[in-house]
């Protein structure tokens, strides 16, 4: 029993005595051989670590050591800018300054302890040890394999920039810098993940963003104690105000222009290395239902599209439920001729309407989920089968009525009109409980689920800002940019964040 308990207890190996060598804060030794011994011990069984001996100078020969991880450091640059100048040295260098002058690399750091050595090597920076010097040099010539900047794969626009964030943090920050060319743009760097040491940045515009907001973000990020962070989604889950909500309270985007737009509005952003999805804070409900294109395509079209989108969002949420409620409880609402054709079509079907609706919706959800994970090669096969099964064959087999197929397909299209994928997932998920309530209590059930949603949405906050702002609480200045999209020149004020936690000391405008 005791053994079993012990087995299940999670032991944190990082703090055990055996592993202290990885967190060695000891200062570097003067003797090169001593340093080499310790480093070889640490990097034992790491075949990709390159440890290279060098001999500098001719008259007094001085030994040196270069350490890097193959594949992370730029070998061509090492060759050109490090090894070549060092071999050309006439006499062995006596101090670090002379070596620094010799190497033609702008980013050189002096480091003095072992743990920083490991950190720099892990970051892809080659580290140069010189005999008889208790310091080492970290050379900032890392080169990681990344893909090119491509079009974002989830947020498409017709008009507007096609660039999307990629997995490399440096490229992403450069994309942001490219759009906001002011020294006021601050990019604070942090590292999270106990083992992954994932770099991430908190970005904001000094003077627009509330300092308390940044402080709160840093505080919440610091509190994360996860072994590894691989995507901004993991940070998102840790830092959001309310975890128990189907609604996303943290906005994520793949588009640099959306990200920069949010920064200029006074929000703060988080970028994580290895993740093409940036986080924007605080996020409000309407951010999830607007597309950057709304702002690029003229306010009349933008407004029309937003109204259309709101309408279809309601359909995505309530469409099948209203159909079920009306056909089972309130037939009088349907025009007579339509009612007759609905009843006729339903006569062949052996199930109650709600069962029909649930069958269709769940099948559709399965197709959608399978569609994402499909290997490219089998994609067309599945889509043909899907279309046949949930369309033609289901009707011919009298499993569902044709009208239900229409309702479900309209709902499916509607749910993809929501620009943000996570928000559309939420809407799709909420559809099911509402459908069941509608089938048991008719319109009353729908209205009560609507009330519950309203209460829940009004109670949500994202970093202190009410989620439904500027609609509730009502803010006259920014209402122009919610369900409608007013002309750009009418949006004179930045969104006013009323979170009482920080809004009081709002600096600069």
């Amino acid at each position, binding site marked *: 029993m005791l053994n079993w308990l012990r087995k299940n207890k999670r032991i944190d190996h990082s703090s055990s005595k055996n592993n202290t060598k990885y967190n060695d804060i000891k200062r570097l030794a003067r003797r090169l051989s001593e340093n080499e011994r310790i480093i070889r011990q640490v990097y034992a069984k790491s075949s990709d670590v390159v440890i290279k001996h060098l001999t500098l100078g001719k008259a007094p020969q001085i030994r040196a050591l270069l350490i890097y991880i193959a594949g992370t450091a730029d070998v061509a640059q090492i060759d050109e800018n490090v090894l070549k100048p060092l071999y050309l040295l006439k006499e062995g260098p006596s101090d670090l300054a002379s070596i620094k002058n010799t190497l033609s690399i702008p980013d050189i750091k002096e480091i003095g302890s072992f743990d920083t050595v490991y950190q720099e090597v892990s970051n892809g920076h080659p580290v140069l040890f010189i005999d008889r010097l208790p310091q080492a040099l970290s050379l900032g010539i890392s080169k990681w394999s990344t893909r090119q900047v491509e079009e974002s794969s989830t947020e498409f626009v017709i008009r507007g920039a096609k660039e999307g964030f990629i997995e490399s943090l440096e490229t992403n920050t450069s994309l942001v810098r490219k759009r906001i060319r002011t020294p006021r743009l601050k990019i604070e760097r942090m590292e999270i993940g106990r083992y992954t040491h994932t770099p991430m940045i908190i970005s904001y515009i000094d003077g627009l963003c509330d300092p308390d907001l940044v402080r709160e973000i840093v505080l919440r990020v610091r509190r994360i104690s996860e072994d590894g962070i691989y995507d901004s989604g993991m940070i998102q889950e840790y830092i959001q105000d309310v975890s128990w909500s189907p609604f996303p309270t943290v906005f994520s985007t793949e588009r640099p222009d959306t990200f920069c737009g949010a920064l200029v509005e006074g929000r703060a952003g988080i970028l994580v290395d290895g993740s093409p999805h940036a986080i924007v804070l605080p996020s409000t409900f309407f951010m999830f239902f607007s597309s950057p294109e709304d702002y690029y395509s003229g306010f009349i079209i933008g407004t029309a599209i937003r109204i259309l989108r709101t309408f279809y969002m309601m359909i995505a949420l309530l469409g099948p439920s209203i159909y079920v409620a009306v056909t089972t409880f309130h037939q009088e609402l349907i025009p007579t001729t339509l009612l007759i054709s609905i009843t006729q079509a339903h006569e062949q079907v052996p199930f109650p309407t709600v069962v029909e609706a649930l069958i269709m919706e769940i099948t559709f959800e399965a197709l959608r989920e399978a569609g994402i994970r499909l290997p490219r090669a089998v994609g067309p096969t599945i889509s043909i089968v899907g279309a046949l099964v949930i369309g033609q064959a289901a009707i011919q087999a009298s499993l569902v009525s044709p009208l239900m197929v229409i309702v479900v397909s309209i709902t499916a299209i509607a749910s993809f009109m929501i620009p943000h994928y996570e928000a559309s997932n939420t809407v799709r998920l909420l559809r099911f409980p509402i459908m069941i309530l509608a089938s048991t209590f008719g319109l009353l059930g729908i209205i009560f689920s609507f009330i519950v949603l309203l209460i829940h949405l*009004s109670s949500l906050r994202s970093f202190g800002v009410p989620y439904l702002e500027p609609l509730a609480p009502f803010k006259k200045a920014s209402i122009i940019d919610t369900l409608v999209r007013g002309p750009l020149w009418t949006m004179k004020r930045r969104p006013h964040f009323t979170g009482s936690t920080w809004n009081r000391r709002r600096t600069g405008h």
Partner: protein
Amino acid sequence: MIMAHKEIISASQTYIILYLGIVSTGILTIPMPLYRYAQQNMWVSLLLGSFIGYLMVLLISFFRKYFPEKNMGEIIIQLLGKTLGHVSLFLILCFFAFEEIYILKEYQLYISDVFYQFTSPFIIIGFMILVCAYAVKNGIEVIARCAQLILPFILFVCFGIFFLLLPDIQFQNLFPVLEKGLIPPLKGSVLPMVWYSEFFWMTFCLGSLTETPKKIIKSGFLCVTAITVTILLTFIADLGILGLYTGLTLYPISLAERYIQVGTFVERTSAFFMSIWVLGVFIKLAFLSFIIIRNSGKLLHMTEERLLILPIFIICFWISLRIFNSTASLFQTGNFLIVVAMSCSNIAFPALFFLVACLRLKINKKMVLKK
């Protein structure tokens, strides 16, 4: 994570809550009994009754001015002393609880009579109690925000019904004006007066307001006028379409609204309007139960008022399943009782507090200032 902060709502948000509350039950249950008093002059009664609304707004700003940052519950105890204050607060809360049960019953009987004959009251009331409990748990800020979101829907219902009925309204039904003098409408004005006196509820969240008394008066008058206009339009619709039948049907607006027909497409829309109307009732009930729970917490000196949500709602639920089991009993006995209860809790008590406050202010001007 986020610091606990004081709940802050604006005066206009509170007025929206009151607007929704008064309008949603007002358009449904005032016309029938009022027609019996004032016949086609029921709109005169409404105008007369609306004066109490303006008075109430003045009273709210009075309490706001002389007792800043304080809720009515605290003001009562400060004015009347510990024992008397607690007793009168308890009495008011009892009246409020009765009003809450009455409104629940009103809503349930309307739904059961007109739409869901076969659904048990247990479900219909139970649903409402559940959502109210959820709203109260989240506090007044959330209720106020919900009210803001619901406002357009209710406006749509009220004005939508009126404008869709406009072609059918026969305006000659509104005449003759005051054929029997001013006495019948005066008698009838008690009924709208009771509805307008609900403005007193607002004093129980004075502490969360941020506006100056002047602004409270301004938006308050606007709110009273808006309520009058909205209810007036439905009165016109009732009278113009049903005429004499306004006094003979339980829910005149529900009957009148069946005349709506736009083409052959929009017709028989009662169920649709009913479901939106429920939103308004929800706001009214949530606000009232919030007041009851918040102040019972004060009465019992509890720091965590949320513990009271469950017991108080269970009691309300149980009683509302027991009393007024038919629409007839609700309109016969209930109507009389609710008028008495409302005029006690919302008119007599406030008047008393006002007098005491005036006296105290006169005797010792410094007392209030010190506190």
